[in-house]
């Protein structure tokens, strides 16, 4: 990632920076979509919204550490390019929301995330982010509920 970014600035090809971001982004997303054990979610002392916010906070911190050297490199060469990290980190947070909103169905999770990315340039998927947030909180509350859920 760092080499690609450095080379990009050296030869004046900003596309290499985007490639580095894409590679880093895919790596981070593969970690973000990793599901923890359902029982761990149930056991957590962080309930519903608190759990979601805690996970988002940890993931934001980890992503910042992961991209830290790249952020520093971009700051050194061209500080105006720092904006590229804003949509990237936003996508990471939406990925977390989609993971918990569709926790039980990995296929649905993948399809919705891909649709979100495809239509993101048209801005309207931003409107569904509050919906994902509410749905994630609801799913987490269900997973953590100690009440016996009627068997399907």
């Amino acid at each position, binding site marked *: 990632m760092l080499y690609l970014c450095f080379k990009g600035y050296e030869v004046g090809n900003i596309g290499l920076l985007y490639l580095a971001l894409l590679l880093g982004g895919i790596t981070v997303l593969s970690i973000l979509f990793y599901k923890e*054990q359902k*029982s*761990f979610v*149930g*056991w957590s*002392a962080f309930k519903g919204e608190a759990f979601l916010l805690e996970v988002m906070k940890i993931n934001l911190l980890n992503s910042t550490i992961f991209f830290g050297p790249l952020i520093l490199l971009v700051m050194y060469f061209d500080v105006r390019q720092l904006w590229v990290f804003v949509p990237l980190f936003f996508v990471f947070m939406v990925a977390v929301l989609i993971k918990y909103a569709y926790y039980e169905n990995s296929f649905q999770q993948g399809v919705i995330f891909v649709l979100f990315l495809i239509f993101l340039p048209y801005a309207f998927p931003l409107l569904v982010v509050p919906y994902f947030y509410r749905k994630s909180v609801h799913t987490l509350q269900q997973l953590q509920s*100690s009440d*016996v859920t009627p*068997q*399907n």
Partner: protein
Amino acid sequence: MLHLKIDEKSYGRKSIFSQLTLDLQVPGVYGLVGKNGVGKTTLLECIAGQTSFKGGMHWNQQILDKSEVAWCPTHPFVYEYLNSTEFSRFFAQLMKIEQIKSKVVFDVPERPLIKEFSTGMKKKAYLNALLQKEYTLYLFDEVFNGLDMESVFALQKLILSLGKTKIVMVSSHIIDSLFKICDAIFWLNDGRIERFERNEYRNLELKLLG
């Protein structure tokens, strides 16, 4: 104290329990025995809130929070790319345990990753992490499996001390272990559950022998 009523529990079309009731009124160690596939693990999962069923599970007429149940499955899940100390720390953070017990239950090597551990060692690492705090209810599914003799004795001692003030349920195929530590043993057979007190263990043995 504990009241479990399962109206129906099935996997697909296969019914496991129908109209099953379990009442535990006093703290103690309770055993659970039965043939393979009769539903011992399913029953413990129902109590632990790890699986859904038609019915209800109440603790003093109230719903018990999942975080109040210590649940140790036969093959506990551990994050293999952490070492035992990191896993315990993760568990403490997950459960917001502020006062971490200084003494661990089992001696487990701290440095190697859990993926390098044997089955028994993984179980020990899990139990060390799980038992960092006190729970209302303890459920151990075939907990002695994979443990060495020394650890079995240590765990039996721990279960006995927990059983003085808490309800502890232990399922096992090692019947002698249960005879030693249990105040009563439940026999699960054909979807029905039967209770045997200490003085009735001989009857249970005869039933198990068929």
